């Protein structure tokens, strides 16, 4: 009898040992797609004991929607998983303790130290621990509110190690207004942007000041001299920042159109550069994370696809019907620099065109916006702070890993480091001082 008891105890001890040997630390990170490239870089650059093995969806780590990193940190087996769904969606998932709207890669995903591309082993639906956000949580719908049956509390802010910078802020994220391939406009003011995103389309003459550019409509298609608004869905921090920046209000509704192929009755969203756009329709209604979004208030779920969509041929696209028919026209969209820049070629005949904003051009400075003085000295104001938030009550083993990523971004890998900025603002869209 004694022998059996001893064996059972030994077995239990062995089981516990095996369990502890496999007790890994997990950080699941979601949120801003605009900052994914910088975050993936930062994750690889934190203090792993040895270079981590990793894998990602798609063909490049910088643009991957999901990624997994695995290795040891201070001797502890550690997984960091990312699934980028947009800032608002990230805040919603973390503040509401909900699954991310796109699942994480599974532990069993094949990884390598050189990075394994194009993996498809999604399916880890564990709720995320932390999120990156282009906006303050206080600007979000999901802040100290109850929507449906879900209550959204206040999130904790990551510790970047800075005693002076705003809590949880890891860097700055710049944005651009861009217009579609072939467009003739060069600048947009905050007033014009308010008008455009409220009404959905405005006459070209408001952008050029030329009487010959007054847009007309007719059963024959009018003269096509119209500028149409397009953009992201309400999960996007880029959208919230843009609407706050132009003075419309971060949570305001918008009137946006969808570049499409197919027919007006059965439009197909354009997601590839160079597409011939045949119809332009009010952005179809949808339901995002259980919240109904009305026609025209919806938008692209991906900034990359939005940038590619406006890099299409709009010459023959048709909007409306009968006496309200418009043929042709151009789009304006708000984009993160990482999405916009690959589609900007410097020629309106081959790529999208960056607009100056209130007369100031951010420019494409070879990807290093730390050197853009119009941004860092406050002349160009279309930017926001990038934040890392996490759930309250997370184990310190998890927050320690999150804080390492936050500090790495803050100190080194942010798109624009706070140390580069000579100006600041108190919240999204606030005065730059």
């Amino acid at each position, binding site marked *: 009898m004694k022998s059996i008891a001893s064996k059972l105890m030994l077995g239990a001890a062995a089981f516990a040992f095996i369990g502890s040997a496999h007790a890994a630390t997990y950080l699941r990170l979601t949120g801003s797609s605009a900052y994914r490239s910088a975050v993936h870089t930062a994750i690889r650059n934190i203090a792993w004991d040895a270079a981590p093995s990793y894998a990602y969806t798609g063909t490049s780590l910088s643009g991957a929607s999901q990624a997994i990193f695995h290795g040891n940190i201070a001797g502890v087996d550690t997984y960091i998983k990312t699934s980028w769904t947009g800032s608002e969606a990230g805040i919603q998932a973390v503040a509401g303790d909900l699954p991310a709207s796109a699942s994480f890669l599974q532990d069993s995903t094949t990884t390598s130290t050189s990075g394994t591309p194009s993996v498809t082993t999604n399916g880890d639906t564990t709720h995320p621990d932390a999120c990156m956000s282009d906006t303050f949580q206080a600007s979000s*719908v999901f802040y100290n*509110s109850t*929507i*449906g049956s879900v209550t959204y509390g206040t999130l904790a802010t990551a510790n970047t190690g800075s005693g002076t910078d705003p809590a949880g802020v890891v860097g700055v994220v710049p944005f651009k207004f861009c217009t579609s391939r072939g467009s003739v406009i060069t600048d947009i003011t905050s007033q014009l942007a*308010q*008008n455009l995103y*409220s*009404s*959905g*389309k*405005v006459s070209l003459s408001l952008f050029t000041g030329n009487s010959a550019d007054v847009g007309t*409509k007719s059963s024959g298609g009018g003269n096509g001299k119209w500028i149409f608004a397009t953009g992201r869905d309400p999960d996007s921090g880029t959208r919230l920042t843009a609407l706050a920046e132009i*003075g*419309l*209000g971060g*949570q*305001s*509704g*918008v*009137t946006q159109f969808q570049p499409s192929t197919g027919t007006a009755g059965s439009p197909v969203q354009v997601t590839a550069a160079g597409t011939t756009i045949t119809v332009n329709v*009010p952005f179809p209604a949808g339901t995002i994370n259980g*919240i*109904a*979004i*009305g*026609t*025209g*208030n919806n938008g692209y779920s991906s900034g990359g696809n939005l940038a590619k969509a406006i890099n299409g041929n709009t010459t023959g696209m048709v909007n409306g019907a009968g006496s*309200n028919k418009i043929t042709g026209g151009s789009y304006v969209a708000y984009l993160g620099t990482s999405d916009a820049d690959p589609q900007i070629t410097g020629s309106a005949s081959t790529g999208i065109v960056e607009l100056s904003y209130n007369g100031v051009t951010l420019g494409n400075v070879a990807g290093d916006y730390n050197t853009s003085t119009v941004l860092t000295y406050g002349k160009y104001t279309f930017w926001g702070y990038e934040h890392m938030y996490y759930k309250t009550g997370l184990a310190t083993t998890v927050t320690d890993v999150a804080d390492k990523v936050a500090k790495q971004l803050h100190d080194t890998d942010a798109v624009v480091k706070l140390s580069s900025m000579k100006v600041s603002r108190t919240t999204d869209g606030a005065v730059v001082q």
Partner: protein
Amino acid sequence: MNIKKALTTTCMATAGLLLIGQSAHAGGSAVSYNDGDIFLGFRQTGGTSAYLLDLGQPDLFMTATPGSSIVLNTTISGFGDIGADLSSASVFGSSWYTDGNVFFAVTGGTKFGDNFGDPEGTLYSTNPSSTPWTPQSDGSQVSTVNRLSTAGFRYSLATSSANSDLGVIQSTSTPNNYASFQPGGTIPNSAGISFAEWNPTNEGLVNTTLYFNQIISRGNGDTSVNIGFFSIDSGGLVTFTAAGSPIPEPSTYALLGMSTALMGFLIFRRRNVRKA
């Protein structure tokens, strides 16, 4: 059946109908907003609550028989007993009807045109004046509908009140609450006038009558017409009367009162003369 008995029966039947119309509201159910829907909104000067109901598409009002009256509480499914909500301490309090601080308005519109046949940018709005609102450009009116859809999105995030499946009680500190679109509300929602469109306001005190206009933008017809008027009683019954019957002006009531007093005086005087 004598007259008294008939009246009693009618009253009981009406009360029964009202009860049917206003009962069975557990509260906490999902609400929704669709492009083209019409809102009935209430707010209180200096108050901390607003109250908003989605009345649905404008068909009910546009197709009403001229001169007919519709009690919304018993006609619109889920409307319920909004008087109970409005008079509750957490909304406007028991003196909501008479304290001179609670305003209402009815507002709606469509961004892209709706099934009813309204063209893009068509607006509906109450109006304290008998002169209909002036149509604006297509873009301006679509912008106003965009503000309405912003209010609608905020409305759709909430759940219904205890007494109405369509009623939502909002805090005036919540972004894009109904009060923020009315005079004194936040910029850019109101810009000092109702929905940044109707100058100075499309509201009236709850114990007044408001005209109701359909406004078609300049590029789509350039018309604005009175389609009826709204009134509310102290119990929270909301009545829409379709245009076609005379809309009583305050001056009409004053003339009616004066003529009644004059007739009374003449009868009194004739009786006294006869007695003499």
